[in-house]
């Protein structure tokens, strides 16, 4: 065991930091308040990701045959960490390089690869993820958006909800139902968002502009070739893509950075003297570091070429605990931060409160830990 980074890894991290330093505008923190899914940040990201691509750090972790440098999981982790700490200047494009690209490569038709991969590698495309529905949030298998194959076209009717980026995305990675089999009746369709019949309604939210939408599909018609993989293959493909995204966003790094920022603000005002404030800060740091090591234990399995199992749920839940603690620390000891005194801490708060809901609710992670890590006998259904 070895708990330090190699010199190469340190150099890679510094390369990214230097790039960020050189390419983020001076008012970036204030600017990033627009939120990762806002029109402003999305427009910014379209320029920023082009520069990232030029600098070779948009997808260095992709295999060489896909145009990447074939760097390992640790480097992907470092890249994700630095971007997320910086407030994710890639906006929604982080999904492209983390899982949409690799999934396209594995399951896409030649036409789909040709059409979608290149804009991703140029840093120019934005996707949204049509998974959740009003009556199927964490329970994907009960989704109802229907795709009917008629005369070589899929006609899609239904509704998605919570969809991030939907107002600005080019393409939707859409889960549809093509038969009544709960799991095997689900099919992925890649739907251009300018297809007639799609209505996007933004839902005002606590977490920033552009982050939450309803998307309505009324007789949306796309050619059969828009289907991704085979009919009924969605479950397998989503599992594969989640495997690439198993760790999700390295939220613990931003939580720790926000904590350090908060402590510095308190110190600047001479308010980091009370014992209980210091103890709470330390407790937050412990939770952030705990989440970090738990996440790294999962990365290690990828490095070792092992299948990643339920321990990723443990790491995710550790992250939720850290996010929550830091949010609460700021609320209690730096309430002014959320009223304008610190765009960075407000940004963290808004992203932090989503941690337990996005990408597999915290309760689902606990269910998985109980059943698959602790191997408790199953609940009756």
């Amino acid at each position, binding site marked *: 065991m070895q708990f330090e980074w190699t010199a190469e890894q340190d150099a890679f991290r510094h390369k990214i930091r230097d790039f960020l330093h050189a390419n983020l505008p001076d008012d970036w923190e204030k600017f990033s308040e627009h939120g990762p899914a806002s029109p402003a940040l999305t427009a910014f990201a379209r320029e920023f990701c082009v520069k990232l691509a030029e600098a070779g750090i948009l997808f260095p972790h992709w295999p060489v045959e896909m145009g990447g440098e074939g760097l390992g999981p640790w480097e992907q982790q470092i890249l994700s960490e630095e971007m997320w700490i910086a407030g994710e200047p890639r906006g929604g494009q982080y999904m492209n390089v983390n899982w949409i690209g690799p999934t396209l490569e594995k399951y896409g038709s030649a036409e789909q690869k040709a059409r979608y991969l290149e804009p991703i590698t140029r840093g120019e495309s934005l996707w949204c993820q049509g998974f959740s529905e009003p009556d199927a949030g964490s*329970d994907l298998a009960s989704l109802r958006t229907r795709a009917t194959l008629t005369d070589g076209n899929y006609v899609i009717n239904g509704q998605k909800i919570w969809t991030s980026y939907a107002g600005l995305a080019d393409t939707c990675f859409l889960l549809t139902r093509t038969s009544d089999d709960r799991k095997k009746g689900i099919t992925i369709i890649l739907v251009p968002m300018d297809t007639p019949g799609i209505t996007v309604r933004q839902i005002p939210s606590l977490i920033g502009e552009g982050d*939450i939408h309803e998307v309505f599909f009324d007789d949306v018609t796309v050619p059969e070739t828009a289907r991704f993989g085979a009919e009924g293959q969605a479950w397998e493909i989503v599992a594969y893509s989640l495997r690439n995204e198993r760790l999700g966003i390295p939220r613990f790094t931003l939580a720790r950075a926000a904590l350090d920022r908060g402590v510095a603000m308190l110190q600047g005002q001479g308010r980091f003297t009370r014992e209980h404030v210091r103890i709470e800060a330390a407790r937050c740091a412990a939770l952030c570091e705990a989440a970090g090591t738990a996440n790294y234990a999962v990365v290690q399995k990828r490095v070792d070429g092992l299948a990643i199992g339920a321990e990723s749920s443990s790491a995710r839940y550790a992250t939720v605990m850290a996010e929550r603690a830091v949010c609460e620390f700021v609320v209690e000891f730096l*309430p002014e931060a959320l009223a304008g005194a610190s765009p960075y801490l407000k940004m963290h708060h808004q992203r932090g409160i989503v941690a337990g809901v996005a990408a597999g609710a915290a309760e689902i992670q606990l269910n998985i830990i109980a059943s698959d890590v602790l191997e408790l006998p199953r609940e009756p259904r």
Partner: protein
Amino acid sequence: MDLSLNEDQRQVLDFIDSLARPFAGVPLHDVSLALESADLDAQLLENGFLDVMAVEELGPVTAALVVEKLARLPFAVEAAASSFVRPLIDAELPRPLCLVEEGRVTGPVRFLRPGATIVVVGPSGVRSFTADDSMIAPAQEDTLYAYPVAFLTALPDRMATHEADPAQVLRAWRVAIAAEMAGLLGAALAATVTYVSERKQFGRPLATFQAMRHRLAEDQVMTNSVYWLALRAAGTGDPGDAALALLHAQDAAKRVCYDYHQFLGGMGMTLEHPLHLWTYRLKLLTAELGGRGEQGLAAATALWG
């Protein structure tokens, strides 16, 4: 010992219920979380509900009941300071009243606006002044708090000095906020319970899942005891009781705010469900008077020296 509402108290609460009925709905709101209603405020004032503490047959427990009840409305009402602190200083001070701790004036101040009375409480005594534009910096428009807040940029050179005992004002302040938090906690719990009882996931209401049931049950226990501790602190007038009540309220708020949004899932991230109106008030009150640690220290000193 008598923990039943008396007839007067029952009447006051019933009267508020009917007065507040038109204000129970949540108007559409987009960015700003801070809903207010001048109409509601005027009616409360007119009917004397913010002045019950001084009425002999009503007194501080009834004032706490009023503040608790009003905190359940979607509209933020400056009732706590007016009900509990104003009578101790000068019943004629213009509302809203904004309470500020001496030496801790950098935080967001609730209801701060031109014309508001700022009361500065601390070792040097109890002083007040009327705020004007020159000393107010607005919070950013999309502040996350469901109170109107602003920042004080400066204190004026001259303030009115009041005879009141700062320790008494501080005690009343704690009781007032504890009572307000009791109402917010009650409303947040009720809103969450309603949602999870109706919302289905995996083919059954969310509220049928035992893990959520047990957490909500624990929240009920905390919420219930915040209510009682706030009323008791109002009734006894004891500084230790006041500090314990606010400590417990702030502990409860910290416990529930995250959970409730979590229980609502995606809906808890939106402004379409009103939960945030209560939780994002509770969050700000978690920091009131320095937060849990400071209440704990105050309570320890009161209890054990």
